[in-house]
């Protein structure tokens, strides 16, 4: 199965997002490079608003991801509560 991936700038705003993704997607692996962290997952990967809010203790709008997002691959399905990357249709 092909991987999807998403990468963020390695900073304090991204840290809870990365932690939430790693907790919600047991198959995901995080690869750290200078200045960035890239998360690979076979087939699909989901980012959940609630999981991020649990970590930060404050409201999070998923579109805030754009500020620290570097790159991604796969088809996107996004609503107010989750963003899923996948190679499924």
């Amino acid at each position: 199965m092909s991987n999807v991936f998403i990468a963020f700038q390695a900073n304090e705003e991204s840290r809870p997002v990365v932690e939430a993704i790693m907790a919600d997607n047991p198959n995901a692996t995080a690869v750290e490079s200078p200045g960035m962290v890239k998360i690979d997952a076979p087939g699909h990967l989901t980012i959940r608003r609630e999981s991020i809010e649990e970590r930060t203790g404050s409201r999070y709008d998923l579109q805030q991801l754009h500020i620290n997002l570097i790159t991604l691959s796969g088809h996107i399905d996004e609503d107010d509560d989750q963003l899923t990357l996948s190679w499924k249709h």
Partner: protein
Amino acid sequence: MDTRVPKKKLGLKDRYAAMTRGLGWETTYQPMDKVFPYDRYEGIKIHDWDKWEDPFRLTMDAYWKYQGEKEKKLYAVIDAFNQNNAFLGITDARYVNALKLFIQGVTPLEYYAHRGFAHVGRHFTGEGARVACQMQSVDELRHYQTETHALSTYNKFFNGMHHSNHWFDRVWYLSVPKSFFEDANTAGPFEFLTAVSFSFEYVLTNLLFVPFMSGAAYNGDMSTVTFGFSAQSDESRHMTLGIECIKFMLEQDPGNVPIIQRWIDKWFWRGYRVLTLVAMMMDYMLPKRVMSWKEAWEIYAEQNGGALFKDLARYGIREPKGWKDACEGKDHISHQAWATFYNYTAATPMHTWIPTDEEMTWLAAKYPNTFDKLYRPRLEYWREQAQQGNRFSNKTLPMLCTTCQIPLLFTEPGDATKICYRESDYLGDKYHFCSDHCKEIFDHEPEKYSQSWLPVHQIYQGNCFKPGTDPTREGFDPLLAVLDYYEMNVGRDNFDFEGSEDQKNFAAWRGQAQSN
């Protein structure tokens, strides 16, 4: 009860629909085709523009908000970088030559992309596509500006960055990226999207903005990594646009599939050729390297691009024709390109050098099948010659590929000891190519590519001298006349890094940074 009940906020999907639909119009006193002359003439059939959706569903209100936040962050970093003379913290002044290539060859492309998206955004009849193109057009203009601002601090202290726009239209190797975008911007709107949104943004842009920018962080260049990642976060939106537009076109009509396949073949290859510059930036120009070009190619082209083409197979789309040759090239192109820049260093507003022994050991480990066998002996020979006072420098001008405009420096598929060379005849003239794929692109549209402005041809025809230059006068030096036309500072902007003003200044400034 008079208590006002607040209306429930629309969800993301409804908000997107409300902000991107119903913004167009049907013309009344002029036919639609006259007002929108371009969105049919390539033969692409669109039956329902409403099927176009931006997967991120970003609307203008959210766009301004988040772009504003990104700008504040970026300029805070640039300010801090400047206030602290942070350019003194980079690993080595050789690194700055990668930034010279960036401001010379990449930043002007952002401006071309801005113009291209503004143009196609005006000419699509579907509102969703127009909104997406409009946002991307603004993004690209922002990239041009932020890159120029971020790199301006280096321009104050280092040579070879003072005249990038002037050079973009004139200097020999900059015709490679320039011709890519001029080709795309003069195509129809759907071909433009396939070229830029899909082939360049989705399949190839990661290779430019991700490992190289991580390399900038590794080399202490906070200014560049910040503009790179800030731009790349827009690219992730552009990538979703790229995959959306290709799916949209393929799903609208089966007749679109063969047209698009031909464009994918063409634009993958053209984009791959442009990235040759990035390959050598990563392997030769970063003093501290994050990964080799070959490793980056495996991650971002073979794995990511491979997944994409596997996915598109359901439409009958196959991987681009040049795919296998490009994958073979991962072992070669950075070495072949660097060798070319080394031997044309007199005509190049950046410095070159022979890698150190440690760097050659790194290259040998990353390229176990090719470096020691094919490329190390040549570099060591040149180093030995330079030490004896015979620095190898090429005085004649190379044959250029009419399509990609790169000198014929690449080798045959399957035989890296033989230069690859192809030719075609058109209206009684001969045209030359670096590969089967560039030849095929020409043969399909010779009326377009026979007009290519090829720097070497123009130099030999006498079109690259300043007005008033007299080539018949005694002692005329054509190379110096061309460099005068480029407005390069001979002896400062060009030749070897070793002994350059950049090298000496950086060493002196670093000394001052370490003590009084």
